[in-house]
């Protein structure tokens, strides 16, 4: 948003100024360390609960403890994609650079969690199901999600003009949104090897309390980590894309 738009806004609505890369840059820099610290604390707490408080599982024995990273990674892989697609959509609709930058900042972290969901899932599947992988609806759609993230990043990297890269990536991100409900409902809509949801909004959890607590703490740990990583990355993107502007020159010229 240009400074002209800023001045036209009535008093009291100051949030929109953070839509400017120049204003958001220091805010991101101030927030990121807090989220990183929260992530560290929650990871320690979550892993402690997962390994030292939660008991063993009657069905799967100690192998089930992979749940404390597998489920958080899987939930994050989906949530980050939705947030990424949201900012991509906002960028397309309002033509705001920072929205697109945020989408681009989220993609690698989303891809990371998707890979971890698949990797930890494979390591969990082998001793329990008896196979590293199966082409059922859940696993196939999660793999498709990884391809969507890679496609988004590759598409943006392939297009030189940043504005066109933003738009192309945004269209791909939005089209891929349909995959998220497919991943989530796959175990309900189709016969799958992957079991149904243990935790949902509508029914009581089918997990012992300590196990559930450990898992939820880890979910929030991953969430805080993802926010910190995305904020740090968007700062890099801002510096890269705005490097010709006066404020970046001043900022970098000051010996940072």
């Amino acid at each position, binding site marked *: 948003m240009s400074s002209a738009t800023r001045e036209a806004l009535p008093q009291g609505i100051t949030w929109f100024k953070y839509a400017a890369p120049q204003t958001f840059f220091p805010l991101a820099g101030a927030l990121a360390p807090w989220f990183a610290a929260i992530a560290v604390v929650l990871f320690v707490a979550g892993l402690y609960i997962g390994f030292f408080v939660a008991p*063993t599982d009657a069905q799967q024995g100690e192998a089930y*403890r992979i749940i404390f990273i597998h489920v958080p990674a899987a939930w994050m892989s989906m949530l980050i994609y939705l947030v990424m697609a949201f900012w991509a959509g906002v960028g397309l609709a309002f033509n705001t650079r920072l929205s697109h930058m945020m989408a681009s900042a989220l993609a690698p972290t989303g891809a990371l969690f998707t890979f971890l969901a698949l990797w930890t899932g494979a390591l969990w599947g082998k001793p329990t199901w008896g196979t590293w992988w199966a082409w059922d609806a859940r696993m196939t759609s999660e793999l498709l999600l990884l391809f969507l993230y890679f496609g988004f990043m590759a598409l943006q990297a392939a297009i030189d003009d940043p504005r066109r890269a933003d738009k192309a990536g945004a269209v791909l991100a939005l089209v891929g949104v349909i995959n998220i409900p497919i991943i989530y409902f796959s175990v309900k809509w189709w016969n799958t090897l992957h079991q149904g949801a243990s935790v949902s909004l509508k029914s009581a959890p089918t997990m012992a309390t300590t196990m559930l607590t450990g898992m939820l703490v880890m979910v929030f740990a991953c969430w805080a980590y993802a926010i910190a990583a995305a904020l740090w990355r968007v700062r*890099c993107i801002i510096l890269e894309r705005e490097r010709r502007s006066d404020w970046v020159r001043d900022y970098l010229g000051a010996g940072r």
Partner: protein
Amino acid sequence: MNWGSAADFFAMGGYGLYVWGSYAVTAVCIAIELVSLARRRRAAGGPS
């Protein structure tokens, strides 16, 4: 506490390879992401 000894903890009831293989790769991936972010920040902060 769940574990009789450190050996029990690392063995994870016979599933140690799978459990620790999961968490080790997670730690490595997070480390890679953080290192690459630091490098990217340094590169962006160079002379314009």
